[in-house]
């Protein structure tokens, strides 16, 4: 009796996708809020052109997150656009999970080719500097230290962290 061979439909990693969606939401809202609150991020974002669109995507078919600069301010827009001006692409859900959970920093993830870029390289440098500052608000120093090359100096960390978690992330303000 010959064996039957046919198509195989792979499953989905629902749990990791779910975690990624939540982290993308938190990251997007936190960025929106921190871009108003933190002078370092504000200075960087001021250099971005009006209408600039940034997306983070998990390849090949995972969740995504988008940020846009509108009226001089950064806004979290939910799903990221495929043809955004700068797209930061995780090559697979496992790599995304490592970075988003956060077990690995963005520089190391780039170095290990777990993340790829599409678009303007200079803007990506500016975004990474913003991300480093954002991480300093989002995580305690002992975690953040492992994710960034040098711990960013932030003012009033306790007050601002509180603001970010109580108002920034839940209400986007």
């Amino acid at each position: 009796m010959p064996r039957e061979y046919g198509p195989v439909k792979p499953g989905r990693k629902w749990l990791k996708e779910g975690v990624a969606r939540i982290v993308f939401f938190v990251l997007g809202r936190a960025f929106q809020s921190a871009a108003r609150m933190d002078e370092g991020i504000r200075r960087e974002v001021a250099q971005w052109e009006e209408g600039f669109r940034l997306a983070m995507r998990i390849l090949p078919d995972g969740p995504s997150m988008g940020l846009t600069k509108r009226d001089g301010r950064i806004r979290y827009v939910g799903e990221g656009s495929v043809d955004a001006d700068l797209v930061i692409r995780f090559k697979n859900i496992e790599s995304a999970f490592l970075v988003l959970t956060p077990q690995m920093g963005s520089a190391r993830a780039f170095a290990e080719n777990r993340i790829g870029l599409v678009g303007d390289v200079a803007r990506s440098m500016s975004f990474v500097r913003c991300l480093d500052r954002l991480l300093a608000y989002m995580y305690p120093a002992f975690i953040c230290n492992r994710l960034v090359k040098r711990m960013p100096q932030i003012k009033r960390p306790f007050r601002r962290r509180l603001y970010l978690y109580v108002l920034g992330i839940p209400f986007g303000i």
Partner: protein
Amino acid sequence: MLPSSFEFHNPVKIISGYKVLDNLPYELSQMGAERPLIITDRGVVEAGLVRIVRSAFDSSGMTIGAVYDDVPPDSSVDTVNAIADVYRKNQCDSLVAVGGGSPIDTAKGVNILVSHEKGTLKDYMGADRLSGPLKPLVVVPTTAGTGSEVTLVAVIADTRDNVKMAFVSRHLMPDVALLDPRMTLTMPAKITASTGMDALSHAMEAWVGLQKNPLSDAHATAAITLIRHYLPLAIADGKDRTARLALANASCMAGAAFSNSMVGMVHALGHAAGAVCHIPHGVAMGIFLPHGLRYNLLKRADIIGELLLPFAGADIYAATPSAQRADRLIALLVEFQRFLKEKAGLPMRLKDAGVRDDQLGAIALKAINDGALMMNPAEMDMDDARRLLAEAF
């Protein structure tokens, strides 16, 4: 130090040796091409090198579609557009770049345009925006420094908006690189020195950077050993074929190393200094290399110290305690700089290269936005960059 994962991609066929240029028609025919466009610059023509390339086609039965020999020192969008028109008008089917960084980058830019049905160069700017594969591209370097024959990058100036557009894609990798020492025999000592320092900085930054991996390390250390030994010989006697071939190989290996491990702050500063003050890239590399290594000591002293073996040889390496190797390397590098200044007139300081004090701020601002900084081990912000530039001034 082994990364938990890495990628190494180098699909370029590398052919190295005396008179290997005569393989050019064969290599083109292997890719189904029979009507190449040769892209080069006036300097290459005046050095008599295009004659050597043309004679390689004798008895081949092929037709050279056209020879575009007017590429400016900094390749520009206008030049790329003009050459793409020449390519189409003459029904060419492949490209041969003969020259240093500018003709090679220009050829990569032309390849983007002639391989895509529509769009302008700007539409493909940035990382990974190209769909491939592109038309066959053969590169014949006439300097030993850029490593462009094995890299996935092209930088082309948009003179109207005064910006340098970077293109990064695996599809930009040439198909074949022909390293023939005949093509570098006429290079003056100063250019030999500056391009040699460019190659050395590629190798050293690839070794030090966050993306280093066992394969890039092997290419980097082999390149450093060759440069240390043969660069002084090529400066002493430009006609030394062995030295020229060794440097061509070193430059190519250093290119493969940094194409897979990235460069770092030395290049970020060098690109910025080039953009603001128009100082030649190799000159900038020669100036910034020891400063960049010293800056990274805080994070990677052990790794930098290991470079003493390929750069100084086994005897000096073995006689130097491990804690002192990094400092010894930097001291020897400064000595090497002095040697190149004395024998070839290569500047050691920014002011000697024509940079003005009031330009340092603009260089710092450009440097911190340069993509090369991403893989540099130590963080460099605006204040750090200003401090380092003041030291190098």
